[in-house]
């Protein structure tokens, strides 16, 4: 703003200069009004829906947390000894399954995305990209069916081998005491239906999401930055590390969070593959696996009534909070890096 500019609108309108009628503000811009109304309304709608969901969850969940459940409550809650003792293992199972899935999915998805954006010939990349997108369109029930009938049995011998040979790694140890002689017997999940299989299927389900989004981000890396790196004598991999990955970091984080969101809330695939229980265990191959909140609700809602309903809805609220926290953390990470993001 220059120093001579009028300091306010008022000053301008009260000047005594004659007003050219063709410059008078037109008050009847119907299209403008209509469009701004629609877009503002749509934005408000999000708030209303979110508020409605939150209100429903909270009001329905309160009875489960605040008062002693009646005879209609879930027996599992009674067995666990209270609502929190019951929901905590479920929350653990949810997070554990998702974390395992992300550990497998994120590196693989980034690898695929880099292959598609920087290594594959254009034609291959295009076909391959379609296939990845197609994978995202497969319904989760189908993934679940495939996991139970194909993947789990196929991996079962491998799990036995892991338990026999690598049981010194805590996660692969499925041996339990047997009899009084201090003997051990393997307590492997039947037919390979364990936590690892569930996590693998979850990983397969989120890979297309993360791949598709990160590929787009990688493709948008400014050519200038790639050339800057190459001109300094970077190999292709060094160029990717120096120019492509830093540029794509926030994209990787946000697409991973979207994938994590799907993994956390995924119901059918887990419900079909994992015969889950209310317990906390980091072991991947055993018969006793923690369940996830979404799968637990799906498995138990049909028979629940009264207080049982409240308890399941309260578990749903816990899932809602977990997802919310995950998204907020992701935003905070992206925000804290904005100065170096190249957006300025």
């Amino acid at each position: 703003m220059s120093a001579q500019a009028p300091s306010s609108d008022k000053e301008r309108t009260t000047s005594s200069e004659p007003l050219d009628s063709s410059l008078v503000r037109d008050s009847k811009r119907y299209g403008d009004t209509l469009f701004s109304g629609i877009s503002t309304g749509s934005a408000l709608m999000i708030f209303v829906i979110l508020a409605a969901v939150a209100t429903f969850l909270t009001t329905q969940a309160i009875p489960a947390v605040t008062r002693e459940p009646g005879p209609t409550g879930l027996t599992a809650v009674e067995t666990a000894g209270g609502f929190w003792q019951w929901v905590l293992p479920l929350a653990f199972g949810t997070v554990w399954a998702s974390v395992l899935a992300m550990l497998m999915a994120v590196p693989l998805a980034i690898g695929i995305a880099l292959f598609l954006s920087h290594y594959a010939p254009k034609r291959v990349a295009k076909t391959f990209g379609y296939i990845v997108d197609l994978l995202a369109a497969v319904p989760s029930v189908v993934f679940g069916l495939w996991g139970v009938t194909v993947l789990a049995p196929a991996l079962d011998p491998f799990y036995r081998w892991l338990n026999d040979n690598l049981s010194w790694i805590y996660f692969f140890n499925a041996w339990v005491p047997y009899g009084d002689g201090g003997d051990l017997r393997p307590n492997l999940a039947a037919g390979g239906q364990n936590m690892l299989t569930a996590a693998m299927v979850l990983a397969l389900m989120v890979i297309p999401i993360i791949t598709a989004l990160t590929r787009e981000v990688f493709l948008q890396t400014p050519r200038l930055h790639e050339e800057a790196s190459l001109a300094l004598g970077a190999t292709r991999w060094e160029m990717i590390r120096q120019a492509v990955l830093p540029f794509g970091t926030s994209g990787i984080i946000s697409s991973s969070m979207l994938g994590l969101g799907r993994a956390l809330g995924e119901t059918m695939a887990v419900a079909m593959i994992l015969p889950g229980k209310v317990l906390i265990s980091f072991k991947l191959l055993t018969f006793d696996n923690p369940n996830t909140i979404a799968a637990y609700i799906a498995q138990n809602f049909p028979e629940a009534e009264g207080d049982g309903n409240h308890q399941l809805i309260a578990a749903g609220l816990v899932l809602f909070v977990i997802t919310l926290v995950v998204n907020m953390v992701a935003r905070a990470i992206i925000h804290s890096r904005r100065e170096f993001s190249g957006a300025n």
Partner: protein
Amino acid sequence: MAKRIEIKDLDIFYGKFQAVKGVDMTIEPRAVTAFIGSSGCGKSTVLRSLNRMHEVIDGAYVDGEVLLDGTNLYGPNVDPVRVRRQIGMVFQRPNPFPTMSIKENVLAGVRLNNARMSGSEMDELAEKSLRGANLWEEVKDRLDRPGSGLSGGQQQRLCIARAIAISPDVILMDEPCSALDPISTLAIEDLIKDLKEDYTVVIVTHNMQQAARVSDSTAFFNLKAQGQPGELIEYGSTEKIFHNPDQKATEDYITGRFG
């Protein structure tokens, strides 16, 4: 330091399209050589072929020889990555890495070369390179701030600092001032004059006053006709090219009678 470049019968292609034809020239060390000519005449293409950046584009290739102190850069066992580590490049638009701080930007090339350096050596090299690019005084208090927060002219000098930090033999500049204001341009031109003390400098420019101000030799490129490959029309001392060119086309271009 500062090596001589000999270009021998260089043809440059983008797929089936021939962009440049039959360039022969010798670029002297410790001097500034300017490439001038109208848009699309192939001068940037020739420049990019000198550090094998041309072939980064899909389907682009080169036929001919570019000798760096006698070694053919297009020889069968030559690694383009190694070539680029010896021949630095500054681009038309400043392109510091946005995710890196000023200091990290300067040291980006050194890091790639796997040089094991102590923290104090790194600091020294960063300071030396920034001083070499006339930027040290302006940024010494904010070396850890993002490079993208600098002005355009400062960013371009940061890129020059990044290029000289790996002690190249040659520095190529592709219209380094075309995105800068006159004051920043002046700063870069002064810097170019300093750089030729230690390096072979080749600069592509659209600005003929700039070529006249900074260069010792000038090469004029032109197209025979639209759609034809670009060719080297005349090459000689800047003095001669600007005051007494042999070719009519050069004179027309210099005096502005040519688009």
